[in-house]
């Protein structure tokens, strides 16, 4: 099996006015969960649709599970090892979940082993209800199950949790984590940076049709250190801190003073010295890291 599960080089679909996806290049490795983030209209869905050959790229190349995809017929060679969930649609509304799963099994050419029933039970999904009678969250569950029913090596999910309540979001994220723990690769787009942080090993950010960031989640989070939030600290403590930290690392936020530090120890030592306990430490989030890029 090839090391790189998905490799795209200079993939481009230019709709003009900064719309589409331009010169998109990245590769995904075995067992990775990679988050694809960016504002609305940045080019996330366009990129995924080019990968899936739903739309033809203007230029660029893509290799899925070791197969070079030059035209639509090529992707058929790997589709039995790829799962895909579109941002919306992708289901027959007048069928029940069970009928959809049975149809998917037939099209993937696999024997029914009751796996989808197990998953549906875990997710508290009624598979005997027609899709049109299901809530958005349950429709997403049907979509996810039909995408992983054949245990693909590569799973591509376009906004799998958008519009869902936190409980269902968590259920779906658990499925994704469980899926990936078996050495499979997941590529998912999302607006929810907290969700990406909790589940993804790596983050790729796209803005105005171009990739502007691609790094490990941990590296991004640790890049700027940690935050210490002091609540109404006395002036003497602040003066001591200013001797240790540069001014740009100290910010006021209402009654709080926010310190961004690489190392906690020097600051904690000062706080302990004055027996100041009104503070808390936060790990910076992707949201804080990226929010200015949105």
């Amino acid at each position, binding site marked *: 099996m090839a090391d790189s599960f998905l490799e795209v080089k200079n993939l481009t679909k230019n709709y003009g006015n900064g719309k589409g996806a331009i010169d998109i290049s990245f590769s995904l490795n075995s067992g990775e969960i990679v988050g694809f983030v960016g504002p609305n209209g940045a080019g996330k869905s366009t990129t995924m649709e080019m990968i899936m050959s*739903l739309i033809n790229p203007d230029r660029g190349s893509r290799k899925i599970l070791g197969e070079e995809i030059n035209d*639509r017929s090529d992707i*058929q060679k790997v589709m039995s090892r790829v799962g895909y969930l*579109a941002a919306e649609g992708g289901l027959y509304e007048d069928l029940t979940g069970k009928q959809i799963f049975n149809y*998917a099994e037939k*099209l993937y*050419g696999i024997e029914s082993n009751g796996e989808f029933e197990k998953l549906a039970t875990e997710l508290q999904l009624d598979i005997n209800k027609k899709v049109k009678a299901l809530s958005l969250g349950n429709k997403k569950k049907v979509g996810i199950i039909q*995408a992983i029913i054949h245990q693909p090596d590569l799973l591509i999910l376009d906004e799998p949790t958008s519009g869902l309540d936190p409980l269902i979001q968590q259920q779906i994220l658990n499925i994704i984590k469980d899926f990936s723990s078996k050495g499979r690769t997941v590529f998912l787009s999302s607006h929810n940076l907290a969700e990406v942080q909790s589940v993804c090993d790596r983050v790729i950010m796209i803005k105005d049709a171009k990739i502007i960031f691609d790094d490990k989640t941990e590296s991004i989070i640790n890049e700027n250190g940690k935050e210490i939030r002091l609540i109404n600290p006395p002036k003497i403590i602040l003066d001591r801190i200013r001797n240790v930290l540069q001014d740009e690392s100290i910010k006021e936020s209402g009654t709080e003073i926010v310190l961004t530090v690489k190392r906690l120890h020097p600051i904690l030592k000062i706080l302990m010295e004055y027996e100041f306990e009104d503070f808390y430490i936060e790990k910076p989030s992707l949201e804080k890291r990226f929010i200015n890029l949105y």
Partner: protein
Amino acid sequence: MKYLHIFNFEVKRSYKIFIWWTIAWVLMILMLLPFYNTFSTQGQEFAQVYQSLPDAFKVAFNLNELSLSTISGYINTELMELLELFSCFFGLYLGSRSIQKEINNKSILFLLSKPVSRTKIFLAKVDSIFLLSVASNAILMLFLGFGVIFFTDADAPVKYLAYSFVVLMLMFTLYYALGILLGVIKDGGTIAIGAIVIIVTFMFNIMSKISDSADFLKYLTPYHYLDLGPVVSGQSIAIENIFFILIIALGLFVLGFRVFTNRDIDT
């Protein structure tokens, strides 16, 4: 095998509409046939009525002394022309619905994310509707044939029914192909455009029969090439006409197929 799964799925999705379609026309046949004996015994009187009509009107609607006094003329005038026209609309409706609807509501993404080619998807959809259409028209023609035997004193007009079957299939297929083509090109308004084509070509046929100066219009309408009028009079439909319409329908299918296999389907 995957083709067969899609084919079966499509048959299951569409058979109900064909059942209702067939039932509706069976009821129509049941309403018409019992009156044939009355009409046939009054053939002379109808001939006199027709003679009083303008020549152009008679030619345009294939009305002559055979129209009601012979069983094939009676079926042609009272049923088949209507069935032919409605088959065009039915074909158009099913054609535009089969792929366009799936693209619009994005259910096509279910199939496109599976290991099946667009060629198989297209062929399975077309073939399933074609099979149901063959079954429906065959049932209608058989019912008509047996209906003639049971409800009238006439013999079943086998030759006329055979030609009617061919004409109905060709008309349905032609507009089904047009519906598919329009459906994969445009995201909406397919039925309206297709309906205009059906009505315009229907009017071309009538106009070409009414006016000598509009005679050339007959070459632009399938109703001219597949006119059942001569069959009522014991003649046949030229085989080249059948092939001509078949080739146009195939051409429309190929165009629709090319557009479908090459078009982007985004979310």
